[in-house]
């Protein structure tokens, strides 16, 4: 089991943060294009999912998986979107993504008045805390994929 990469978007579709761990193959396009593609997909899939839903939804879009990887999605009511790609062995990650939001994003970015909201995050502290948080997860590198 392993974690490939993680994106954080704000409500306007700006990619606030990106980091990757075990990503062996790149998309072959520039990072900016990749962010736009990712956000566009999320935006469409969200509205598709809520249109198709037979009942009123609670959480809405949570995850999808392919034969090779799984994409976990978490969104706050303020429109912060956290996306994490892992391999298929990783279980439901909602709690983990919520923890990234509440203990890392809110603590180190929102409460830091010098961090401008809505722009790419520049905080070294946030980056290093996030990195160690991810590396400490039980399914980061159980068997090097």
């Amino acid at each position, binding site marked *: 089991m392993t974690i490939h990469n993680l994106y954080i978007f704000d409500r306007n579709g700006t990619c606030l943060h990106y980091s990757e761990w075990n990503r062996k193959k790149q998309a072959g396009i520039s990072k900016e294009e990749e962010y736009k593609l990712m*956000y566009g997909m999320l935006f469409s899939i969200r509205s598709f999912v809520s249109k198709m839903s037979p009942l009123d939804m*609670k959480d809405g879009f949570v995850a999808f998986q392919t034969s090779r990887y799984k994409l976990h999605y978490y969104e706050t009511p*303020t429109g912060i979107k956290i996306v994490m790609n892992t391999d298929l062995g990783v279980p439901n990650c909602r709690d983990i993504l919520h923890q990234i*939001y509440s*203990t890392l994003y809110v603590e180190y970015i929102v*409460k830091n008045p010098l961090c*401008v*909201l809505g722009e790419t995050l520049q905080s070294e502290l946030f980056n290093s805390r996030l990195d160690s948080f991810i590396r400490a997860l039980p399914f980061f590198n159980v068997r090097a994929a």
Partner: protein
Amino acid sequence: MSRQSNRTTDSKKMNSELFTLTYGALVTQLCKDYENDEEVNKQLDKILFSLFPSSRGYNIGVRLIEDFLARSSVGRCHDFRETADVIAKVAFKMYLGITPSVTNWSPAGDEFSLILESNPLVDFVELPDNHSTLVYSNLLCGVLRGALEMVQMAVDVRFAQDTLRGDNVTEIRMKFIKRIEENLPVGDE
């Protein structure tokens, strides 16, 4: 103070008098900086501190809502009544330690009042005569407006009654204007 991790649930204690006095100092300074009460009210509502010129303003509500969502397990509200309840029972309790009552619903259900029996911001305050139009606690309006804007709700918030001006209670009137729709960023090819 906020450098600890795993502190999502414990609410930090802070001396409320220190908070009240600090807020008082802020209002006093604004009164010195600006000529008339109207302008002070506007600044309190916006809270665009010039402390951090590079950060293009520091809007408390816009940030406070993130802290609120991180600490409480509140999800998206289904209607305005639920929003009113969450504001009164969860948010005010969490940040000011008081629970205002929700009353005076308009027939259409888009407008209500928060009645504050006590307002911790005004514990030591008496308005001097030359500031008769000052809305001392106008900060609360800005915080509510900013926070709700972040969860896609445009609201109008104002003080309808204020104990500082001789009313019996403090009443904050909130009116729902519209839902802010989320749009796909344009111009991406």
